[in-house]
Structures are given as structure tokens and as C-alpha cells.
């Protein structure tokens, strides 16, 4: 494994971790809203959150390029603001990954929140817990399994994704070149041995992370707080 691959690996996990965190921040309120609202908009939003999946990644990437390019209002605004282009930057990658992995975050979270049901939230309210407090101290801990699923799917998917990332990121070594592109290149250029090696590293590393997560999940101590 050469240093370029190493830096791609680092970038990948940085991207996956950041995407997961950002999606937790964005997806959790959305999922909670979806699980509690009686709005008629609800099935519309539910359907919309699944849509990023049905477009092929490269195509989604293409549209994101259009959306984020300096010529677009959003990209232009960003350019003025930061003097940096959204496309071909880590920020752009992040936006793309977040959008593309949105369903993996929102759907399991929503399912988990719905399973919590009304009863514990009512109990929390009568114990003086304000809604936000009740959410963090009751709903979220009771949805732990869903949170885990959402996190794992988002993280793993971001690690493996490369269509969107390639298109929006521009494969700039050290900046937007993630590991999935590197493996892909090895395969394309017939360097199969390199591809095998890199795939193995990726698999072993991911397996270790996931295994640790799942083992920990079993052993969670009973919370006294």
C-alpha cells in the first residue's frame, strides 16, 4: 500500500465519519419529525427522502455538479462567501455524501423512533422532562438499535460509494481522492494484485470497526443516569 493509497484511506474515513456525524445532526430531527407529525406532507417527505437512492450515483453526481457549480446560485453564493468552489472540495464531497446517504440515516431512525411509542414519552413528560430533554434522555436511548443501524449503513455506504464522489470531488489526490476510487483505478488498470491488497485492507479494517461496534452494542451497561 503506497502513500497515495494511505492518504486516500485517511480521507475516506474522514469523509465517512463526517458524513455520519452531519447526517446524525440533520437526519435525527427530520426522522423525529416524521415519526411524530400528523401532517399530510408526511408521506411526501418520506418518499422524497428515499429518492436520492433511485438515481445512479454518477447521475446524481452530475446533477450535484450542476447544483453546486460556481455558476449555480448555491455554488456562486458559496464562492462569494468562502472564495472557494464547492465542487472539487471536501465540502462538496460532504454535501454529496450527505445527500446520497440521507435515506440510510433517516429511514432506520424513523422506524426506531416510531417503535418507541407514546407511552415512555408521556411518562417522561409527567416527570418534568421538556420535549428536548425527553428526546435525549428517553427516545434516543430507547432507539439505540436504530441509531446503530443508521450509523453503520451510512458509514459503510459512504466508504464504498464512489460514483457521486468521483463526479463531485474530481479525484484530486490528497484532497478528494477517496479509497474507493483508488481500488477502482487498480481494477481498471489491470493492477489486480494492488486491487486485491487494497480491497483486503478495506474489508479487514471495516470488519474490525463493525465488529467492535456490534460487540460493544451487546455489552452496553445498564445506565444509572
Amino acid at each position, binding site marked *: 500500500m503506497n502513500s497515495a493509497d494511505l492518504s486516500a484511506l485517511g480521507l475516506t474515513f474522514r469523509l465517512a465519519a463526517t458524513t455520519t456525524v452531519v447526517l446524525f445532526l440533520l437526519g435525527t430531527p427530520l426522522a423525529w419529525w416524521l415519526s411524530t407529525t400528523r401532517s399530510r406532507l408526511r408521506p411526501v417527505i418520506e418518499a422524497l427522502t428515499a429518492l436520492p437512492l433511485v438515481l445512479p450515483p454518477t447521475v446524481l453526481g452530475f446533477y450535484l455538479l450542476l447544483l453546486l457549480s460556481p455558476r449555480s446560485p448555491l455554488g456562486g453564493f458559496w464562492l462569494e462567501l468562502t472564495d472557494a468552489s464547492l465542487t472539487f472540495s471536501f465540502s462538496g464531497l460532504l454535501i454529496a455524501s450527505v445527500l446520497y446517504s440521507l435515506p440510510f440515516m433517516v429511514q432506520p431512525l424513523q422506524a426506531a423512533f416510531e417503535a418507541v411509542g407514546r*407511552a*415512555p414519552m*408521556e*411518562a*417522561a*413528560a*409527567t*416527570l*418534568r*422532562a*421538556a*420535549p428536548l*430533554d*425527553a428526546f435525549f*434522555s*428517553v427516545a434516543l*436511548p*430507547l432507539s*439505540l438499535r436504530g441509531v446503530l443501524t443508521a450509523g453503520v449503513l451510512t458509514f459503510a455506504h459512504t466508504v464504498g460509494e464512489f460514483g457521486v464522489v468521483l463526479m463531485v470531488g474530481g479525484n484530486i489526490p490528497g484532497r478528494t481522492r477517496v479509497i474507493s476510487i483508488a481500488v477502482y483505478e487498480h481494477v481498471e488498470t489491470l493492477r489486480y494484485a494492488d486491487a486485491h491488497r487494497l480491497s483486503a485492507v478495506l474489508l479487514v479494517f471495516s470488519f474490525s470497526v463493525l465488529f467492535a461496534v456490534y460487540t460493544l452494542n451487546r455489552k452496553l451497561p*445498564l*445506565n*444509572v*443516569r
Partner: protein
Amino acid sequence: MCADSLHVDVELRFGSFSLRLDEHFPTEGITGIWGPSGSGKSSLLRSISGLERRARGRIAWGDELWLDSASRIFVPAHRRDVAYMFQDARLFPHLSVEGNLRFAERRAPSKGRSISFEDAVEALELGPLLSRRTTDLSGGEQQRVSLGRTLLTRPRLLLLDEPLAALDSSRRFEILRFIEALHAGFGLPMLYVSHSFEEIALLADEVLELEAGAVRSHGTAAVSFAGGARLQDASLSVLAAEVSRVDARWHLAWLEVAGQEISVPHPASFQEGDGVRLLVRARDVSLATSRPVEVSIRNVLTGRVRSVEEEQDSAFAEVTVALDGPSDAPRPLLRARITRASLHELELEEGHEVYCLLKTVSVDRALAHG
């Protein structure tokens, strides 16, 4: 009175069921809520606690509006300062027993206002359970933890929905005493739902009886029981009395009732001069036409038959007796349930003089507190 009361004027519909009432509850005493299954007791508590958003109308705690559908006021549950113990325990499964208790305590105002964590654990015997998972607890254990959690909320109003249903009778009795002490010590008002006559009789200052969502009766326990009211099948009488002397040797307290005297086992809390009330079940009262002698029943009250009610197709009759007493005061009434056979054998009729034998004066407590 209005400023000191909880005013509940709500309507709540579920399909064919509707709860509709306009009542004032005291902000000091304990109100027992009584009524058959499905009569709307839990729905009433849910409305008061702020969990039932479908309730229309007006709920006010003194001057403080909790609900006013007309002006779209709705104070959410967590800001009503009301604690609600659910009929099902609803413990948090992700927290240990201690975690559940601490959950309430951490969000409660300072200790001064009600019991401490240690007191609750002690009184409810939760010590050995503290580190346990709530999902492994027995039914009664769950209920005790849930009660403890509710008490530790230290609210200004306590709503208890059959808090002792899963407990054995001796523990139930202990916890009842604890609840009563809590009430006396902190002046904490409560609405107390129960199917148990004894619990209501022991605790409640007022009784609200619901039936199919409507109020069937509501009044002070004395009025509600004594005026011939019958809590379902439990016909009983409530008599005001005063502790006239205490007999330490036999552990008895002598009470004056309408100028006559009876004795009851002496609870430690009774002082000479205390006003108390007696609850006497009609079925615990026998009647005699001459004063009985050489019998272990020592509580005998004299009076005159006010009315006789024979029950159709039954062995029983109910006799209401106006007790003798000072001629200026209204005569207290005592109800007796005897067999129709006895009624006819004794030839009891309106106006006859009778001796009422009280075998068990099962419940009694201080009338006024604070």
C-alpha cells in the same frame, strides 16, 4: 374557595364514550376517584396532567390556566408541575431502578417540598432493587418503583391511578400509611383512583364517583358516604367524632359520637380532643331491641329507626338509624345491613328505639389536617 381549587371543566370524546364534567377539587385534600372500569377515571387524570390533547374546555389551578380551548391555551404536561402515576408502571427499560428514580429526582425542585430519595427508597422498600433492570421486576415491584418515581417528582399535585393494585394487602397498607403521612407532612393534594373501597375510605377527604364518563356523585367523604350514598355495593356511614380519652392499658381510644361513647383500637397519632371520623360499613352493624349484655361487642349506640328498605329477591334489608344525641344538633345517621328474617323477628319499624352494635369500626382518620 375558587382561587384555592383545581377547576376541571372538560369534555373529551372517544367514539361512543364521552367524559364530561365541571368540578372543583380541593388543593389541599385527597380526592378519591371511584367508578366502574371504563368510566373515565384514567381519562380524567390524563386530561388534568396535560397528556390528553383532545380534551376541550377549561382547566385551572387557582388563577393559573392549564387549558382553555376557547383562547387556545394549553400548558404541556411537563410544565404543569403535576405528577402522574400511570395505571401501567411505564418504567424506562433503558434505566435501572435507581436510574428511573433519579430521572425524576434530578428534574424535581429542591427536597424541601417533598420526600428525599432515601426516604422514598426506604418507605417503598426499594433498596435491594436499586441496581436491577426494570424489565425483570415482578408486578408489585414495578408498581412500587413507579410510585417512588412519581413521588420523587415532588409536584404540587399528585395523580395516582390505582397505585397499589398489584400489591399484597400488608404492603398495601404500609404504603397507604406512607402516602397519608406524605400528604399530612407536605400538604400535597392528590387525586387517587382506586377500585378498593378500603383505600378510598382510608385516604380520601372527598370522593368523586364517575359512571360512563359523567359524575355520579361528588362531595366530602362524610357527605358522600353518610347521606345514604353508596359507593357501588359498599353501603356505609360516616360519623364525625372526637377523641375524648385514650386508654393506654387496652390500647383503646374512646370517641364521642353524638353524645355517646365508643372505643376503637388506638392509633398512635390520636390525641385527646382530635376530631376524627368513623367509617362504618352497614354490614358491620347489628341491631338489637334491648341493650346486649355479656357480649364482646362493646360499641353500642342508641337511636331510632328512621327508615327501612327491604331488598327485593334478597335476604337483606337496610335499616337507617338516627342516633340519639343533643336535641339541637342534626341527628347523625347510621346504616345497618341485616337479614330480612331478623328484621321481621325483631319487628323493627320506623320510630322504634334500637341499639346499634358496631363490631368493626374499620377505618378512621383525622378529619382536619394542617
